[in-house]
C-alpha cells in the first residue's frame, strides 16, 4: 500500500524511480574524440564481434569471419547461419555462436566439435572462454539479438548466463532473470557479466551476485581482456529521453505497435541517418553544424577497466562522430582494436602505459 502510494507520488512529481537522470560523462568517462581521431580505420560492413586467436584479429560480420592482415580484412570462413558472437578459447581455439543456437569450435584440441544445449539459446550475445570452459550470455529468452531495442523497451529481464564444459558438453545455468547480459569476463573470483538494461557490471561468486559497478552512462556490452585489466564496449548511450520513454508505458506500447522500428525513440547503434528519426532539442543543427554534445541515440564508447572492474579511462566518439555503436574490443600486441558496428568500421589505437589508449 505504502509502496504503491509512494510510487504514484513519485510518478506525479518525477522523483525516485520516476526520475530520469543519467549519470554525467565525467571522471573516467570524460568525453574525447579518440575513436574518431584514430588514424587507423579499417572498414568492414556489419562488423560485430572481435576475437584474438593465434595472434590474429578475427571479426565476425553477418555469416562470415574475417581475418585482419596488413591493414585489410580478408574473409576467412563462412557459415550457413548468422554469427552471433566469437570467443577465443586458450590461444589457438575459436568458439563461434550461430543464430541456430549451435556453438562451433575451430582449431585447438576441441576443433570441429559442435555443441547445442537441450534448451536452445537463441540470443547468445557474448561468450568468453578459459582453457576448458566457455561462458555464454543469453541476452533474452523472448527476443533475438536483432530485437535488442524491443527487449529494452519491453523492460524484459529474461536473460541468462551459462557455463559449457567443453570436455563433457554439459551446459550449466549460472544465473537467470537478467536484463540483457551482453558481455562476459572469466575471473579468478568468479565470472563477471555486464547487464545492459541495468547498466551494471556484476560478478557471480559463491555467495551470489555482487554489483561491481552500477549506473554506467551507457549500455554495457562485451568485455575483453587487456594486459592490465579489461576493455568494456558500450554499444549505445543512455539518454534522458529514452529513460523517460521507458517510464511511459502507454507511449512505449503504442510506439512499438505503430511506429516502424527504425524510427523508435530507442538507443541505436547508428542514429541520425534518416529524417524520420525523432530529433532532440540539442540536436538541431546551428549554422550547419551538429554540436558534439548534442543528445544522441547512438555514440561510440569504449572503457578501460582495471583488474577490479572499475573504469579508468575511456575512448569516445560523440554525437557528431563517425565511430558509433561499439560492440566489441580486442587488444593485441600493444594495439587495441575497436569494432564500431554502427558505422561498419574497426579502429585501432596504441595502448598507452597509463592504461587507457593514446588519444
Amino acid at each position, binding site marked *: 500500500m505504502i509502496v504503491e502510494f509512494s510510487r504514484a507520488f513519485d510518478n506525479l512529481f518525477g522523483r525516485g524511480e520516476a526520475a530520469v537522470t543519467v549519470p554525467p560523462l565525467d571522471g573516467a568517462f570524460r568525453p574525447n574524440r579518440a575513436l574518431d581521431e584514430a588514424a587507423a580505420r579499417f572498414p568492414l560492413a556489419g562488423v560485430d564481434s572481435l576475437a584474438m586467436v593465434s595472434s590474429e584479429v578475427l571479426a565476425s560480420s553477418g555469416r562470415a569471419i574475417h581475418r585482419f592482415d596488413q591493414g585489410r580484412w580478408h574473409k576467412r570462413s563462412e557459415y550457413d547461419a548468422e554469427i552471433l558472437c566469437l570467443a577465443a578459447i586458450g590461444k589457438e581455439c575459436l568458439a563461434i555462436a550461430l543464430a541456430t543456437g549451435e556453438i562451433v569450435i575451430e582449431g585447438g584440441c576441441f576443433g570441429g566439435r559442435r555443441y547445442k544445449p537441450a534448451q536452445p539459446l537463441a540470443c547468445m550475445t557474448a561468450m568468453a572462454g578459459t582453457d576448458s570452459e566457455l561462458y555464454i550470455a543469453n541476452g533474452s529468452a523472448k527476443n533475438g539479438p536483432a530485437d535488442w531495442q524491443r527487449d529494452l523497451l519491453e523492460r524484459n529481464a529474461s536473460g541468462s548466463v551459462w557455463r559449457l564444459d567443453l570436455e563433457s558438453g554439459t551446459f550449466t545455468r549460472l544465473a537467470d532473470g537478467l536484463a540483457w547480459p551482453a558481455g562476459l569476463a572469466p575471473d579468478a573470483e568468479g565470472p563477471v557479466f555486464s547487464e545492459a538494461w541495468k547498466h551494471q557490471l556484476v560478478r557471480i561468486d559463491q555467495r551470489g551476485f555482487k554489483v561491481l559497478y552500477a549506473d554506467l552512462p551507457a549500455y554495457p556490452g562485451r568485455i575483453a581482456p587487456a594486459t592490465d585489466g579489461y576493455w568494456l564496449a558500450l554499444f549505445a548511450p543512455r539518454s534522458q529521453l529514452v529513460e523517460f520513454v521507458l517510464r511511459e508505458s*502507454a*507511449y512505449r506500447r503504442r510506439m512499438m505497435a*505503430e511506429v*516502424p522500428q527504425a524510427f523508435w525513440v530507442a538507443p541505436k547503434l547508428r542514429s541520425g541517418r534518416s529524417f524520420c528519426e525523432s*530529433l532532440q532539442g540539442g540536436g538541431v*543543427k546551428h549554422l550547419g553544424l551538429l554540436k558534439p554534445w548534442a543528445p544522441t541515440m547512438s555514440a561510440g564508447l569504449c572503457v578501460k577497466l582495471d583488474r577490479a572492474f572499475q573504469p579508468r579511462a575511456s575512448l569516445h566518439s560523440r554525437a557528431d562522430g563517425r565511430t558509433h555503436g561499439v560492440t566489441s574490443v580486442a587488444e593485441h600486441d600493444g594495439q587495441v582494436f575497436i569494432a564500431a558496428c554502427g558505422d561498419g568500421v574497426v579502429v585501432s589505437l596504441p595502448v598507452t602505459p597509463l592504461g587507457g589508449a593514446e588519444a
Partner: protein
Amino acid sequence: MAVSDRITRWRYRYVPDHLLGEILTKRWVDNAIPLLILLAVALVFGSLIPDFFGPASISSLMRQWGEFALIVLALMIVMVAGGIDLSVGSTFALGNIVALALLNVAEWPVAAVIVGTLACGAAVGLVNGLLVGYLRLRAFLTTLVTLIIVRAVVDMLLLKYSVAIAAAFVDSDFWYYLGEGYVLGLPFSVVVAAIVAIVAHLVLTRSRAGWHVLATGGSRRSAHNVGISVRRVICATYVVSGTLSALAGLLFASRLGGAGADTGVGLEIAALTAAVLGGNSLGGGRGSAAKAIMGSIIVMIMVNGLVRLGITRGGSSLLLGIILLAAVAIDVRWLKNRHKLLSKVYVSPTYAELPPAPATEGESPYALNDRLRPVEAIGLNRIDGPEDVILDEDDNIYAGNRTGDIVRFHAPDYSRQEVFAHVGGRPLGMAFARDGSLLCCIGGMGLYRITRDRKIEKLTDETNRSWFSVIDDSRLRLADDLDIAPDGRVFFSEATIRYEMHEWPVDCLESRGNGRIICFNPSTGVTRTVLKNLLFPNGICMTLDGQSFLFAETWACRVSRYWFDGPKQRQVETVIADLPGYPDNINRASDGSYWLALVGMRTPALDLALKMPGFRKRMARRIAPDEWMYPNINTGCVLRFDETGRIIETLWDLGGENHPMITSMREHKGYLYIGGILNNRVGRLKLAGVDAGWTGQRSYWGRA
C-alpha cells in the same frame, strides 16, 4: 480513431488546461489567496454568529473598520517600501489624545484640531523617517523604540489632561459628524478609508512617486542605481504612515470622545497581521491598497467575531498571533515557489492529430532527390540566420540576421555586403511595398517599414485585444511573415501569442492553436485580427486573384487559403492538408504556382506523441529542453504547388550537406534564392525552363 484517442481529444478540447498557467502569470493572482481567506472567514463567522451581518452589527463593525483600515494602509505603504512601522498603534493613541486635548483643553476650532493632529502624527513619522531613511537605522528596532517613547508621551499627556478632557463638552456638529456621521449611508470613517485607499492605489500604480516606492521596496540597491533618492522615499513613507495613524486616532477620538490608557495597545500586531494576511510582502516591493483592505476586513471580522463568540481577549490575541505566523509562512513560500509552479503548469499540450504522412519515395511527388546539390552559397559564414531573403529591382539581396540587422548583398556577384538597416529585433518575413519600401515582420517588435532612404518606421505593434483571453494578446510577440494586398493592406501572421520567439519548440510541444493572422490597414492605421487559433501560422502569400492569400500552419502541416475580399469573403479553405513536413514561407513562382519551404520533416515518433498530450506534458516537466523530442528541422526541402494543392515538384538536398535548413525561398530572374533561420548562408539555385525576366516586384506591382 480509437476510443481512447477520442476520449483524449474531447478531454483536451473542453478542458482549457492552458488557462491555469495564464492566470498564474497575472499579478492579480497574488490577491486570490487573501480573497479566499476573506470569503472563508465571512462564511464561518456569518454562520456561527446569528445576525453577524445584520444592519446594526455591520454598521458598528464598519465604523471601527474605517479607522483600522487607515492604520493597515499606513503600514502597507511602509512595508511596500521595504520597511516596517511598529509605532502605528502608539501614534494612533497619540492622535487620539492630541485631538481631544487640542479640542477640549486648548479649545482650538475643529479645522485647526484636524491640522494639528495630523501634523503631530506626521512629526512622529518624520522622526521615524529621519532615523530609518537618512541615518539608516534598523526599521524594526527604531519603530519599536518610537512605539515605547510615544506611548510614554501619551501616558504623560493622559495624566495631565484626562480629567480636563472628561470634564469638557464640545459644541460642534462637525466634530461629532467625524465620528458618527454618514455619507450616502456609509459611516464617515469608511468613506475616509475608501478615499485614502483609492488615492494610495492610484499613487502606487499610476504615479512616479508610487513607482519609486515600489522600486525601493523591490530592490533598494537597484532603485539607488537608477537614480531614485532612496532615503527620501523611505522617509516619506514613514511620514505618510504617521499621518494616517494620527488620522485614525482623530476619528476614534471623535467617535468615543474619551482617552484611556489602553487605547491602541496591541494595534500594531493586528495591523501587521492584516497587512501580511492581505498579501503585502514583508520583504517589500509587493503590495497594494486592495490587499491592505482585504487583510483589514479579514482581521476585523475575526477579532469582532471572536469577541462575540465570548472568547477572552487573551484567546483572540493568541489566535491573531498564530494567524500572523501562518500568513508570514505562506507569504514566504508563495513568493519562493510561485515561478516554479508557473513553470510546471504553463506548458499545456493538447491533443493534435495529423493526417497520415505521405511517402517521400517511389512515385510520390515528394520523392527524395538531389536537386539542391548544385546550390551555391552566398555570404557563407558571413551571415547568421537569414530567415527570409528578398531581392529588389537592382537584384540586390536583402536578408535579416540574428543580431537584428537587415543585410544587403550587392549585385551582381554578392561578394560585397553591408548593413542596410539595424532594426534591433529579429527580422523575419519581408516584402516590398508598391513604393519600393521594405516591409518587415520583426520578431518581438511587430511590423516595421524601412524606406528606400533607410528610415525605420513602426507600422504596428499591437492589435485588438480578445475579449476572453486571460493573457494580454494585444501586443505582437512573434510577427512572422507578411504579404501585401493590391490595395496596400498588409496581412501578417503571428505564430504564437503564448511564447516568445526563442521558445517556438514549446509551442510545437503544445500544438494548441496559439497563432493568428492580423491585418494592418495603412490608410486608416488600424490593426485588426482576422483569423485566430491557428497552429503556428507562418508563411503568407497573396494569390493572383487579389482577393485571397495562402497561409501555412507549421505544426498542422497544412496550407490553407483565406479570402479577404470577393464573393467568398471570410472563408477558409484547406489547399494542402497533409504535408510530409513542417511548412514555412510561401512565395510566388514565375508560372503562377507557388514555392513552399518545408523547414523540417515529420517523424512518426513525434506524430504519435502529438496524440498523447499527457506524455508531452510530463516530458516538458521531467527532462531538459535540450533532450525534448523536437520536430526534425535538420532536413528540409523546397516544393512547388498550385492553387488546387497539386504538388508540381520537390527539391531535396539529401543529407543536408550542401544546404542544411530551409525556411524561405524567393524566385528572381531565373534563380531561386534560399534562406534558413539557423543557416550561415544564402543559397542560390539556377532554375531550368523558367521565365528569366520574372521578378516578384513585377508580379505584385507591375514594374521592374
